[in-house]
């Protein structure tokens, strides 16, 4: 019996280590190699040893080059601007619309919600061509506004907030109405303060998707000064070129670390929000 226990314990340990290694090793290798010279990266690959995953002579040259020669600082700022604007726009439009659909009685509210839900299922990949023509027609191609404006009316955001608004007891706003408060007052001082968790979840998920978005920015942006961070990363590996490994890895690290830090601190909201993107319908 004790031998079986021991065997089970060892087996469990092996499985545990295998899972952690499979998911974590790529990150460790990339981050470690971004602090190495190209020759050191190759030399440390065979045989596999601790040197593969820990730089023995760390250098920040790659990261310095990235900012000095490749304009990654600018790309990071562009990404931050786009993501923050997208979060702000999404919050404004979705909270207003969710209030309208849950707190104001009007004919056709259900039809409106059904119309919104239908767009929930449309894949962006199928819309890139007509959307590009539309955005160009509005003279927003190759602008940062053009990157985020199509997505601020987010069906996912409305769906998430509508659920949270519905859960809020209506007695609250009825009491306020008796005190003479109008819709805007109720919206601002009663409803919004009571759905903070939902607002935080929506903000984080929107930020995540905006920061990580690639296809649409690639389609709509053309000049290098407007490139967002994902485009900057992708350009360093365009097939057919000889890439600089260390600099590419440094770019990957710089593009990913802000989100991972955000995620580690606010994991609860992330997991909840991302799981919710899956329960549509």
């Amino acid at each position, binding site marked *: 019996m004790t031998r079986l226990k021991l065997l089970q314990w060892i087996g469990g340990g092996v499985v*545990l280590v295998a*899972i952690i290694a499979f*998911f974590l090793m*790529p*990150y460790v*290798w990339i981050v470690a190699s971004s602090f190495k010279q190209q020759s050191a990266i190759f030399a440390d*690959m*065979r*045989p*596999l040893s601790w040197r*593969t995953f820990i730089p023995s002579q760390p250098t920040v040259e790659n990261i310095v080059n990235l900012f000095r020669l490749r304009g990654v600082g600018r790309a990071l700022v562009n990404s931050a601007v786009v993501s923050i604007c997208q979060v702000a726009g999404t919050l*404004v*439009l979705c909270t*207003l*619309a969710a*209030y*309208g*659909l849950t707190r104001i009685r*009007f004919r056709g509210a259900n039809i*409106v919600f059904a119309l*919104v839900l239908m767009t929930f*299922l*449309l*894949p*962006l*990949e*199928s*819309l*890139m*061509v*007509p959307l590009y023509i*539309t955005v160009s027609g509005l003279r927003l191609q190759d602008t940062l506004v053009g990157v985020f*404006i*199509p997505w*601020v*009316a987010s*069906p996912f955001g409305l769906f998430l907030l509508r659920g949270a608004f519905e859960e809020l007891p209506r007695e609250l706003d009825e009491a306020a109405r008796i005190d003479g408060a109008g*819709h805007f007052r109720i919206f601002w001082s009663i409803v919004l303060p009571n759905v903070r968790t939902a607002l935080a979840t929506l903000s984080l998920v929107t930020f995540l998707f905006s920061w*990580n978005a690639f*296809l649409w920015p690639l*389609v709509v942006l053309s000049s290098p000064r407007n490139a967002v961070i*994902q485009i900057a990363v992708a350009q*360093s*590996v365009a*097939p057919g070129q000889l890439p600089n490994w260390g600099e*590419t*890895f440094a770019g*990957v690290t710089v593009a*990913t670390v802000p*989100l*991972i830090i955000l*995620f*580690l601190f606010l*994991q609860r909201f*992330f*997991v909840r929000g*991302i*799981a919710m993107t*899956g329960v549509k*319908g």
Partner: protein
Amino acid sequence: MKRTAAHWLTVAVFVGPFLALLAVFQYWPVFAMLRDSLYDFQLLDPTRRSFVGLENYFYVLTDPDRLQAFAVTFSFAAGVVVCVVPVAFLLATYLNGRLPARALIRTIVFLPVVTSAVVIATMWTFLLEPNNGLVNSVFGAFGLPRLEFLTSKTQALPSIVLMMLWQQTGFATVLYLSGLQSIPHDLDDAASVDGASAWQRLRHVTLPLMARTTVLVVVMMTVFSLQAFAPPLVMTGGGPEGTSNFLAFDIYTLAFSLQQPGVASAVSVMFMLIVLAISLLQMRVLRAKFVY
């Protein structure tokens, strides 16, 4: 009841902006796509166009390259589902048990979900590099043969499936975990009392109870895979010989490199209908009752 102009003005202020943007950036493009798929034109001057009827569709349905893109994308989705679903299910049941450092492992498994598709594709381009990549190094350490991965006609697609397994397992596991936490414990306990082994309980009690979650996971993984764009763009350029030319990438190249937005729109329409059909199927299945 005074349902006056003021009432509708309030409605318009709250709901109007959202609907206006939705109309411009979702409904109008869908309409424009349906229309454009019937025309021959160039993106440089979309107003100069000639009506060609269903010709773009006939072309898509007969051109071997386009048909290959459909075939490649569907095999990719099938490969991802077959790999991710069992791994995520087992991982979720594993993480659902008593386990040291459970929170830590959940965090690690979930990391790829918050990492962008481009970053992941970039990382894996180098992980899978034949000469100096980490995967071949690890293979070498275990005495396995070195592989070509992305540059080989037969290995490119499986390599990208492997990458998707790494990328999507966390997401699927989270869905399964929330499913596992909502099932009643008494069935499992009863089976345990009746002398069922851990494997039998997993196979005959937990798995059937997870049918709904499995449908959800299968659909999500299918839709995610169908939409994959970064892998061909970053890793392979759709090659070698079109063996990783996914539909999203095909639409992109058709429209923006080959300047055939009409054909790209026809592919887009078919692609959209397929994704919609899968999503609607999911809704129907999930609404149906599962009786045990």
